[in-house]
């Protein structure tokens, strides 16, 4: 090893390291730095004793503070539940109309209902509740079984044509393929289209409609929510608005089924879902 190089200006030996002519002086480190370093080592030791750290064969040390991320999560969940409990208690007591009238409760119920909807309802109604052919759009203002808060709540609570619930909503349109001839059905299709578009309704199908359909759908085809009979005069068609689609529905009607949710989710969740669905824009 050669003689140490002494820096001319400072009179301090260099380490011999050089970058672009800049040399590193070999000054001693301040001692407080050393103590700080020892303190961090000590801190690390204390930390590994206090918290889970050292791996063992099948587990790890749990630390004398008994901290765990699962317990942390549990505590956070409990406090989140506690934060919600006031609202949930209020929703339990209130009717759907009362929830709708209260700004805070309504917003809470909409959020809670939206969450429940995402889990339980989107499979048929879609994530935006816009439905698809055969599955009603919940955003619009046509309601097969009524669009008042109470109607919506009853529909969600007891379902539609759901075998497991005595109060479920039931209606059944006969298969007119067995009752009417092909020409008669075509005439009814024309009549129904005329009802919907506001055209001339005094056509050949009018009489067939009055005899076979008006009992449920009404003389003017306005439907009847009591019976789940859809309004045939508006712009909304659950199974499509083409003549062939209407004819198919008259010949062999399809009937949607929805489970009863109250038995599964409880009254509170059904109220929250009701408020959410009602708030989608079509609620009456």
């Amino acid at each position, binding site marked *: 090893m050669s003689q140490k190089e002494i820096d001319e200006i400072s009179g301090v030996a260099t380490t011999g390291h050089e970058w672009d002519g800049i040399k590193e002086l070999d000054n*001693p480190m301040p001692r407080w730095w050393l103590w700080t370093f020892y303190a961090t080592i000590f801190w690390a030791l204390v930390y590994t004793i206090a918290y889970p750290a050292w791996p063992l064969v099948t587990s790890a040390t749990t630390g004398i503070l008994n901290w765990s991320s699962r317990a942390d999560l549990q505590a956070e969940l409990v406090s989140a539940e506690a934060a919600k409990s006031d609202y949930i208690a209020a929703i339990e007591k209130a009717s759907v109309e009362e929830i709708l009238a209260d700004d805070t409760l309504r917003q809470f119920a909409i959020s809670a209902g939206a969450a429940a909807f995402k889990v339980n309802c989107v499979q048929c109604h879609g994530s935006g509740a816009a439905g698809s052919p055969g599955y009603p759009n919940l955003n619009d*203002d046509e309601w097969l079984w009524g669009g008042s808060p109470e109607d919506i709540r009853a529909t969600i609570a007891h379902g539609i044509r759901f075998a497991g619930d005595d109060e479920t909503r039931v209606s059944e349109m006969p298969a007119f393929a067995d009752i009417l001839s092909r020409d008669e059905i075509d005439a009814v299709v024309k009549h129904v289209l005329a009802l919907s578009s506001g055209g001339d309704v005094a056509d050949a199908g009018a009489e067939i409609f009055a005899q076979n359909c008006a009992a449920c759908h009404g003389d003017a085809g306005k439907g009847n929510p009591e019976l789940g009979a859809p309004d045939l005069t508006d712009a909304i068609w659950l199974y499509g608005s083409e003549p062939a689609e209407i004819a198919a529905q008259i010949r062999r009607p399809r009937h949607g089924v929805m489970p009863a949710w109250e038995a599964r989710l409880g009254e509170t969740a059904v109220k929250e879902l009701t408020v959410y669905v009602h*708030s989608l824009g079509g609620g009456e």
Partner: protein
Amino acid sequence: MTGTVAFERHDAEAVNSARLRKPLYSARRKIFPKRAKGPYRNFKWLVMAVTLGIYYLTPWIRWDRGPFAPDQAVLIDLANRRFYFFFIEIWPQEFFLVAGLLVMAGLGLFLLTSTIGRAWCGYTCPQTVWVDLFLAVERAIEGDRNARIRLDQGPWTARKIALRTLKHAIWLAVAVATGGAWIFYFADAPTLLRDFVTGQAAPVAYTTVAILTATTYVFGGLMREQVCTYMCPWPRIQAAMLDEHSLTVTYNDWRGEPRSRGTKKAAALGIETGDCVDCNACVVVCPMGIDIRDGQQLECITCALCIDACNDVMDRLGRDRGLISYATLADYNANMALATGNGTHAIKPSLVRDASGRISDTVARFHPRKLLRPRTFIYFGSWALIGLLLVYGLVSRDRLELNVLHDRNPQYVVLSDGSIRNGYTVKLLNKIPEPRTVTVRLGGLPGATMSAVGMEDSESKQITVTLEPDRTRSLKIYVRQPREKNRTPGKAQRLVFHVVDKSSLDSAEYVTNFESPE
């Protein structure tokens, strides 16, 4: 016969011999700065009074904003996400104003450094100010430099224990007050003080005070100059802002050297001497423990106390002030060339003196014109430009804002009468601390009407909304358009939401789309 044994004698010494070996770690060498007197010292007292005054007193200034906003002039309300500064109230989305201020502070620091050197370090840096305060306490209790050295080296007598205990107690009190003042910026100061004293404040308040007490005590009382030398990055960075026209505290060896402790004896011997009488006054006052006569160095924070000390000595000796002075490197080099005949010989102070022994008029002196350089123009220009932009941003910002989010799922809904409905989340931001009633109106879409969830108004062209003071209100608004009014089915139509506060004439608008099926 006497034979000679041939061996080689090496010209070497063990590199790691005990004589040469240096310690790997070295203890701090204590510094006992002597009290300085003079204009720079007075200026530092003034800066200390102003900066500490601002820091400790600002949270207690009241500012009336009416019944719906806090009356503390400067308040960082983290819980409600509001920042109050006298007449300015900032919401989180306006934080760019604060970011702009920080950029200005950075550029201001560049400007300051490029003109008057490390003035930030020497006068206004919190580390400097608090160390100065802690030193003043130390001096008041233990006496000036010599008394402190004696006390430090003396045995642990009852007096020493008493003085040291008192000193550290006062230091801790200052540290607690420093940490304590910090938290008042984040909550109503009088309330927080009462809660803090009675033990009812939030744990984070106590933690913050504890941490800041510890850092103030350790950095201001114990670490002192080591923070600047070892921990602060700024001494390293500032070199990039300095140039040969930047003012730094300089020992003018072109008039000081050769230094001599016996000028009369030297004169009698015909030896020419400089102005420096090697009294070490500059060394003993230095809070950084350096000798400025070694030249510009990283440790020097340019607090200028050595200038005060040296000027005092020069006055007593009847010589010109400014042996140590604020000078630029360019002036220094010019004068050095003058004194050494462009480096051809050692310093001859007679070359920079006139016949009467005063400093000659031919030496270069700082002229304020040298502050105007491209570098300072660029720093000042950027600084001023950002400042103007911030002022513009501040005065032109809206106090009533409107944000609209179009529903994406579903984008549109066909209603039973065939009309098309789109849903929007409309956020109304009332940025003044007063309640207001505003009108939301639709524009641009033929035949459009709207309704808001939870509001009584049925389909209409406009709705009236009350806004709470200083709050955002979110509305779910459904806009519908009759089918026959839609001339471009399947294409997005333009829809404008207007919001107007008729009493203040504040208004805002938001342009969005209205979607429809083909």
